[in-house]
């Protein structure tokens, strides 16, 4: 036999691949049993049914939207959707500028409206703060227990005002992360301190003045208030609303930033507290910058995480006024006066994200929020504040409702089309390559198995979802994957045509086919990668599938088809060139083109004629054909066969000759193949 120059162990490769696949399946089985994996890949919206909304956040002031803004916007929408009780909603960014919200099933109009609402951030003073959970006594720290009880027990107008005040004062001290606002600059401290002191007188004066109109019951919902912290703004309706408010998940959807000039009753974003907030004092747009970092005291960095806010020039003044008033209230509050707590709420998308305490007026527009922040929570707050500086409207790009029945019909028909396509491909390769076609079929089956496993894994671990476009990509990939086998088989046949024996042909053909397959698959992969990174939406899913199948194609050709061919080449059926094997050298004209020296191959015209007449007699020899007879004396084996044939008369059909082929080979296989190998060497 023509010996191979390299030691290959095809069986070992095949077994390794089988073990790998078995391991993958085992891993998946474990995932199904103990994890949240599934035996089938998740389906995308167009197949499963549901609603997809594509939103483009647009800054109301027309400025550009950064990636961070987009992330915050997604968080806002996620908060809304999650809290509204829609399970398995998917919210993702698309192409760096769009937000895709996919809601399975048919969500109601309220949910859809909620998603589309614009998000805002504002600063409002806190009028009343209380625990957000149900009024029933719940296990809470003893100090607050007392105060809340007091508050709820005395539902009369005046008394509640007082008691809630007390309650909130105490509770904030304990639980609002102990957040305090202070000025960053050390030298400004003195001046603000004095400011608080001097301003207190005026503050009480206004309080007294406003006390009067509140006591007289007014029918108008909004009372004239002297300042945003005025408790007189709390009308009966507001009060009732506040008392009834329980901050369970249904209230945490956000989305309603309220009338900026009126009081707002809302919850904190974690549902722990509920608030009555005064009108908007500073819109979020006036935040210049917010950063999280470590607190610096006297030029020394401490280990405490804080959030620094810097206001724009406009905001600076407003912030000064607000902090000044709140600081006064602090002074009054500690003196026992009936005023609002000195809390300042940051309201994002209608929910209070933080309500720090203000103890002194801050004139320079730089505030530091400190408290029991972790580095993470400080960074989160800073991001939320930065997002607030850019109020976003969500423009609906498209809203798509897909009924599940339509999707499943498309999927069914698509899979049917794929099945028909696969059967056609199998039939064609069987006709073209005979038994060798089964290698194509086996490789395609292998590719299908690997693809299925990989997709199921991806949908488990990475949230990959199979869309209709993806399914189409997979079906199209049948053709592209099969091409690798065709290139390979054609190269093997080329080598056979050049007169090489099968083992040598497989080896040599593989060397050449490998390069071509790698080069062409690299181009395909390149296309997939470019599309994946530049395209949006469905195109992206398709590119992903295309890239995946390309890689799997390479894996299958390298670790399945080629080792399989190497093994098959050693069998008698293929190695002997059985007519049905698809690698019959005679059919391929293995000797039809005969090497003539000086790099030339003798054209086989004469041979063909000869074959028609003479082929019968000598067709039975593997690797030999009528052509050979002309150029060289018969080998001993051939002479014997000829003699044998003469003894058995009247078998002139060519079919019988070919049928006999394997038998005759048994006698003389070595002789014939050595001939081939010998000529091989000569050729180069």
């Amino acid at each position: 036999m023509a010996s191979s120059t390299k030691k290959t162990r095809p069986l070992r490769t095949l077994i390794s691949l089988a073990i790998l696949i078995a391991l993958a399946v085992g891993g998946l089985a474990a995932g199904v049993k103990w994890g949240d994996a599934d035996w089938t890949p998740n389906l995308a919206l167009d197949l499963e049914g549901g609603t997809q909304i594509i939103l483009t956040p647009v800054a109301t002031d027309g400025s550009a939207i950064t990636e961070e803004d987009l992330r915050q916007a997604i968080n806002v929408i996620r908060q809304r959707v999650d809290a509204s009780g829609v399970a398995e909603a998917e919210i993702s960014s698309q192409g760096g500028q769009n937000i895709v919200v996919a809601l399975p099933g048919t969500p109601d109009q309220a949910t859809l409206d909620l998603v589309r609402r614009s998000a805002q951030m504002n600063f409002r003073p806190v009028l009343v703060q209380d625990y957000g959970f149900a009024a029933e006594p719940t296990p809470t720290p003893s100090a607050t227990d007392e105060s809340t009880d007091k508050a709820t027990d005395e539902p009369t107008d005046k008394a509640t005002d007082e008691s809630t005040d007390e309650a909130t004062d105490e509770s904030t001290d304990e639980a609002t992360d102990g957040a305090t606002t202070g000025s960053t600059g050390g030298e400004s401290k003195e001046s603000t301190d004095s400011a608080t002191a001097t301003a207190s007188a005026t503050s009480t004066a206004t309080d007294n003045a406003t006390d009067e109109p509140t006591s007289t019951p007014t029918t108008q919902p909004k009372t004239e208030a002297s300042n945003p912290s005025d408790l007189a703004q709390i009308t009966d309706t507001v009060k009732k609303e506040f008392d009834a408010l329980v901050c369970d998940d249904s209230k945490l959807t956000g989305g309603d930033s309220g009338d900026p000039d009126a009081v707002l009753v809302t919850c904190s974003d974690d549902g722990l507290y509920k608030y009555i907030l005064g009108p908007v004092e500073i819109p979020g747009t006036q935040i210049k910058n917010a950063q999280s970092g470590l607190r610096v005291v006297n030029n020394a960095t401490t280990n405490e995480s804080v959030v620094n806010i810097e206001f724009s020039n406009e905001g600076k003044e407003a912030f000064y006024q607000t902090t000044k008033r709140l600081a006064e209230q602090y002074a009054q509050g500690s003196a026992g006066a009936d005023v609002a707590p000195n809390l300042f709420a940051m309201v994002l998308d209608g929910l209070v994200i933080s309500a720090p305490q203000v103890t002194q007026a801050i004139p320079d527009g730089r505030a530091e929020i400190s408290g029991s922040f972790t580095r993470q929570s400080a960074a989160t707050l800073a991001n939320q504040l930065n997002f607030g500086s850019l109020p976003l409207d969500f423009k609906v790009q498209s809203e798509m409702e897909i009924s599940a029945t339509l999707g499943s019909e498309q999927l069914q028909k698509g899979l049917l089309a794929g099945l028909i396509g696969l059967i056609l491909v199998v039939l064609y390769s069987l006709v073209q390559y005979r038994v060798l076609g089964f290698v194509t079929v086996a490789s395609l089956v292998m590719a299908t198995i690997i693809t299925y496993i990989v997709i199921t894994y991806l949908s488990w671990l990475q949230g990959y979802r199979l869309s209709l476009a993806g399914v189409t990509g997979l079906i199209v990939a049948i053709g592209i994957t099969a091409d690798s086998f065709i290139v390979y088989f054609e190269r093997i046949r080329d080598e056979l045509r050049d007169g090489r024996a099968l083992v040598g042909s497989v080896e040599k053909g593989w060397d050449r086919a490998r390069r071509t397959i790698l080069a062409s698959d690299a181009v395909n992969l390149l296309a997939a990668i470019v599309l994946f990174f530049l395209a949006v939406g469905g195109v992206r899913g398709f590119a992903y599938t295309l890239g995946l199948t390309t890689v799997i194609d390479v894996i299958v050709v390298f670790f399945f088809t080629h080792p399989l061919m190497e093994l098959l080449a050693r069998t008698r059926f293929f190695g002997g060139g059985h007519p049905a094997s698809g690698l019959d050298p005679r059919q391929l004209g293995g000797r039809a083109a005969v090497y003539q020296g000086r790099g030339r191959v003798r054209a086989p015209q004469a041979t063909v004629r000869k074959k028609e007449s003479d082929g019968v007699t000598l067709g039975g020899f593997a690797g030999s054909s009528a052509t050979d007879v002309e150029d060289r004396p018969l080998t001993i084996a051939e002479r014997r066969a000829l003699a044998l044939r003469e003894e058995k008369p009247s078998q002139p059909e060519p079919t019988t000759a070919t049928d006999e082929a394997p038998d005759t080979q048994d006698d003389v296989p070595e002789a014939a193949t050595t001939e081939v190998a010998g000529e091989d060497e000569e050729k180069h």
Partner: protein
Amino acid sequence: MARRGFSQWGNDLHTGRRSYNIVGQRKGFFAVSLVIVALCALVLGIRGFNFGIEFTGGSEFTVSGVSDTSQSIATEVVEKTGVTEIPRVSSLGSSAVRVQTVPLEQAQIDEVKAGLAEAYDVGADAVTVTTIGATWGKDVSSKTIQGLIVFVLLVTLVMTAYFRNWRMAAGAILALFHDLILTLGAYALVGWEVTPATMIGFLTILGYSIYDTVVVFDKVRENTDGILAQKRSTYEEQANLAVNQTLVRSINTSVVALLPVSSILFIGAFVLGAGTLRDIALALFVGMAAGTYSSIFLATPIEVALRDREPAIKAHTEKVLALRAGAEAGEPAAAYAVTGKLLPGQHQGHAAQPRRRKK
């Protein structure tokens, strides 16, 4: 026996006994391609694309589970709500109807939805609504064009590096544009809506066209390796031989690739009606067929035409032709085809020596 004929044909192509002078007649193929491209451009110019709702913006209603898919019902319903423009109505499969209108207000949408549910006698939840802003499609197309440019640049780089010659990249890219224009033209001619699915189809053509060309070019590269060191055949002849030798592979590949696509196309067009499957499949079908054609009849001839301008190749071709004319008296050249390696020699290594049989 037809198969035998095919395999015999393959043998003949391989040995060069039968050879189609594709590269030699390249001017003819160029002319054909130019005419086709011009026709496609004409179709694109006159007919234009029938842009889908994703590009024009609008509202789409899908009524599923209907027993009567007649389109006039939907038209009447939409007319009743005071929308002056006639909606586009098409049936999806056997039991669903799709109605596309201009962008509607929420109130109008609700009205049409209720009207459709009543008219087709289905429940309200059987009618689904899709509203699409006009910019969505624009976004996708601009991204697509961006992707096309980046892809072309990268492919040029990769192919130039792999084949060590920019001319192959040029041939492949020109063939790619030929395929794209052909696909666009054919799509415009059929008049189906251009949807994101169509875009996906077009983009796949990018990969496939280049892929197919690379396979042919790799054979050309193999055949013309060391072309300058021998004096028997010209670059053109070797390239032509490569095209002929990969002809069987090209045919097999395109048949195998087109079979699944045509089955999707068939099911999509005749069973499902308008939709993703049909749109992708049409774009792919035309594009893949064009890709196979162009990689045989266009890419290599272009490459050879460019290559022939190279001074070294030009000089070599002249030398070979002159030698051949001088040796006229010798064996007729036509009877000999040069296959296999152009240069003899190359040691196969010790292991390649015949081995003593162990038995």
